């Protein structure tokens, strides 16, 4: 069976600056891939290339469900089933909590996720549904961002730094909800600074260093030294 997401020797340039040098990776239906690496390693660039929001120039191939998607516009990919929880949450400040969530329904994909279902997942959002999205705490805003992406009913969920700037307890809560989300059978790519947490939550791990893959395999297969070597590249 072909992988749900198949990236083959992906290269990306921003002007003269190359950000990715031939990155290849696969993710199966229902799998969770942790994408780790230092700042500027190319993690967000990779997510951008997959979801169609990339601003640079790209070469290579990205296949989603066997279909080549590299260079397709983000709105088409959203309708095809790729959703992104963007770094910094990027909620719509003019919209209320529920209005933000309803934006996710715009992809008009059917699936397990509905407004009642996401409220079940994050009950606090139902309580605050009429508040402005920016009036919530950071963790609650992150929940809105995740719920909004879920309402797209994606086959592939890309999460960019969802624990950034949140208190440890809140991070715990967010990751617990991620396990429940997994139960619905969608595939997840997790970009995460916290390597240990990433490896715990994922079944595969991929480390980027300066635009190249330095380590890839089952999440439990590497010891601390190997990951540190791949992460910092001595």
């Amino acid at each position: 069976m072909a992988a749900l997401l198949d990236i083959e020797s992906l290269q990306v340039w921003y002007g003269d600056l190359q950000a990715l040098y031939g990155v290849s990776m696969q993710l199966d239906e229902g799998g969770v891939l942790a994408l780790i690496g230092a700042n500027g390693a190319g993690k967000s660039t990779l997510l951008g290339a997959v979801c169609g929001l990339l601003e640079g120039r790209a070469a290579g191939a990205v296949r989603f469900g066997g279909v080549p998607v590299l260079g397709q516009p983000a709105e088409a990919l959203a309708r095809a089933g790729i959703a992104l929880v963007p770094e910094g949450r990027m909620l719509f400040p003019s919209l209320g909590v529920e209005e933000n969530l309803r934006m996710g329904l715009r992809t008009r994909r059917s699936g397990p996720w509905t407004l009642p279902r996401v409220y079940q997942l994050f009950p606090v959002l139902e309580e605050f549904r009429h508040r402005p999205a920016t009036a919530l705490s950071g963790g609650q805003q992150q929940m809105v961002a995740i719920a909004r992406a879920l309402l797209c009913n994606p086959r592939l969920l890309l999460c960019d730094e969802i624990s950034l700037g949140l208190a440890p307890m809140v991070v715990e809560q967010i990751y617990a909800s991620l396990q429940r989300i997994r139960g619905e059978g969608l595939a997840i790519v997790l970009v995460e600074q916290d390597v240990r947490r990433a490896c715990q939550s994922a079944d595969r791990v991929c480390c980027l260093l300066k635009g190249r893959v330095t380590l890839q395999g089952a999440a439990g297969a590497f010891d601390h030294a190997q990951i540190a070597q791949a992460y910092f590249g001595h």
Partner: protein
Amino acid sequence: MDWIETIVNGLLLGGLYGLFGLGLALVFGVMRVVNLAHGEFIVLAAYAGTMLAAMAPGVPPLLWVLPVAVAAFGVGYALQALLVNRAVRTGDPLTPLLLTFGLAVVLRNLMVETFGTDPRALDGGQFTRAGIDLFGLRIGLFPLTALAIAAVMFFALQWLLTRTEWGRIVRATSDNFRIVRLMGVEPNRVYNTVMGLALAFTAVAGMLLALRTSFTPYSGVERLLIAFEVVILGGLGSFWGAFAGGMALGVAQLLGQKIDSNAGSLYAHLLFFVVLILRPTGLAGRGR
């Protein structure tokens, strides 16, 4: 009593002025594009209404507002889809500005070529000359209707933006045009409908202008100035602020005219100048 009547008439005129600014505020608020051809579109709608009315003399001229507004929606949609979106895509805010500036010049000269430079007006018949007595004040029926239409337009836009799915998408796109794409929304299509709606509002303003006063192909510049002052007085992007700004300008102009019969609009511009100094973010601005 005289003064009160002047103030009331100023408020009535201000409704129309607010409507001049509405389309401009909408386009700027959603896509950060300043439409310098706004005034020409007002005048174009005035000409369109005048022509239609001349073709069918029996019909009350105010009824032509509807078809002209619908046509203006189509023009706005096409304009955005064919030209403005491409200009916006360059990423340089100067490109759409230059585009609409050029468009203004082209439209103005096309109107001179087609209609000549003689002042025209749309004769609204008895209706535009009738008045009613209210608390001892003599108030024109037409200015009152114009204010009512302007208020309805402002309410309608507010309702559309806050209560409908279309409005939610427009606000989200205005907040972040990259992120809405992740939800399957194509920002350019949103912009097309926004420009269409803005020109429809503009067309209503143009028809009311034609019924109120005479105009030439060169009248657009002055209306654009009023629209600008209205939008900036109200605070950029605030529709209710624009409505209030229009009222303030209307009152200032008519009070000015009463004091100094040759220079009414000077006082409106002076008010604008003073507000800019005292409150640069506008009446409803939040000082961002």
